[in-house]
């Protein structure tokens, strides 16, 4: 069971947030109201998606104090503590793409498919394009197509035709490109990669314990960040690591674990 510790904790985190959001609308709970774009904790503390706020700025909106404060709170939280944890601990689409990825492993699609190569930096280009399109159209461009908010709103207010996009992403990740959405395309993941670049919590590898079984690389959604496995004992420092802890879960040799990044000793 210890093989699923972080996976279970993540699912609890993701589902708890959805339940709180749902209750905020359906039963008037005050704990967490709004949606993942912008929320209010206990009706007092604002939280806002920094990328949405950035797009609003590009679209020419006059930003209010509340959304700026909300975006700063989120950016500080992930910047100092969480890293890119939004993607694996909060984002509901992670459950969709993880399901696709799980099925992909069960069906051995990795071993059979004709590989398509797409740069994982695509997400950073997507950020730039999203901001330009926001500027040109006068509305936050990614928010119009974002499967993240579509899924989140769907749970809270009921699903519409936008749910088709989630099905599309599931099949895209399953049959077309491994970790296609979360690992290549999603600009929000890119923004959170940048925000979390210098955070404290990191996975640390101890190569002395490593038996080179490569289970960690099998499950990692951003496999390039595990470039030190079996070679060097060091922390996973690439910004794309989502701190999902799946590698820690599957490692039977105690070669991976969460650690606080050491900025003092170099």
């Amino acid at each position, binding site marked *: 069971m210890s093989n699923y510790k972080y996976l279970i904790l993540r699912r609890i985190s993701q589902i708890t947030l959805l339940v709180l959001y749902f209750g905020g609308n359906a039963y*008037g709970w005050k704990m967490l*109201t709004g949606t993942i774009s*912008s929320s209010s904790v206990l009706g007092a503390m604002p939280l*806002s998606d920094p990328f949405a706020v950035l797009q*609003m700025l590009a679209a020419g909106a006059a930003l209010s104090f509340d959304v700026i404060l909300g975006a700063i709170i989120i950016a500080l939280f992930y910047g100092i503590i969480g890293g890119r944890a939004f993607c694996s601990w909060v984002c509901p689409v992670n459950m969709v793409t993880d399901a696709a990825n799980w099925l992909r492993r069960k069906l051995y699609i990795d071993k059979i498919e004709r590989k398509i190569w797409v740069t994982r930096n695509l997400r950073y280009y997507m950020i730039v394009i999203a901001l330009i399109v926001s500027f040109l159209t006068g509305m*936050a461009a990614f*928010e119009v197509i974002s499967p993240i908010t579509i899924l989140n709103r769907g749970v809270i207010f009921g699903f519409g*035709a936008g749910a088709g*996009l989630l099905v599309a992403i599931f099949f895209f990740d399953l049959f077309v490109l491994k970790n296609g959405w979360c690992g290549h395309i999603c600009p929000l993941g890119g923004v959170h990669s940048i925000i979390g670049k210098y955070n404290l919590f990191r996975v640390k590898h101890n190569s002395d314990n490593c038996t080179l079984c490569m289970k960690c690389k099998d499950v990692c959604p951003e496999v390039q960040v595990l470039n030190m496995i079996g070679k060097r004992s060091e922390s996973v420092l690439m910004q794309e690591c989502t701190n999902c802890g799946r590698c820690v879960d599957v490692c039977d040799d105690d070669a991976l674990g969460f650690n606080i990044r050491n900025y003092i000793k170099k």
Partner: protein
Amino acid sequence: MKKEGKKVQISERRRFFTNIAQSTGLGIMGGLLWAGYAEKAKSSPLTLRPPAALEEKDFLRTCIKCGLCAEACVNRPSNIDKESGKPRPGTLKMAKAQDDVAIGTPFFVPVEVPCYMCDDIPCVPVCPTGALDESSVTNKEGELDFKMMDMGIAVVDPNSCIAFWGIQCDACYRACPLLDEAIKLEYGRNERTGKHAFLIPVIEMNICTGCGLCEKACVTEKPAIFIQPREIALGKPGSHYVKGWDQKDQERVAERVGTDVTTHGKRSEKEAADYLNEGVDFE
């Protein structure tokens, strides 16, 4: 020697520029598709927004699609059904992909659930971005004033409104939360029967907030009174038409002092008296 020359040397510089060109090409193609979709995904001009919403263009820029307004609307104390203890459907809905409204933005359809014009306007102060502008519904005393809401305006179709046929119906008049202010009844004599009256609903455009309670109350199969955004429903006479009988409107003329409103042309170079008297010998 020439055979060796055929082997093209790919320099780092060429590789760099080709990569740039490839990314740019992809970016422009993706960006155009994206922008085209975003442009199409904007709302139908007939969309009715929550109270105190900014003008549509600014609203689309500013709304972060958080849904706090819709949640405040459905969970307001007055919306809780006393018998079941559960909230009734709220007025504000969050647009889905099929709604012909920019996805995730709040709107309402009066014929389904109209706006009940709560006196504490719960949907507005919760807006974190100011897309619902609290100051536009705050009166001089600094209190929220539901009379200042402006979501649209009621329009009557005189052909299908049965009051225009001479049938006595004042459903919209009675449903109006600003009773006898936003909708007034105009009395007229029914010449056809010679002994009945017409009671015709007339909308006061400066008072109607567009809440839609009249549309919901209308008895005809498809409502003969309905809410439209003001930009759609209203015309504009232009500032040079002045109501001479309206003192307030008259003041606009006074404001124009100093601006020359006379037409200047060939015939107006001289005073009328001058050219009429030209060549006349008064001796």
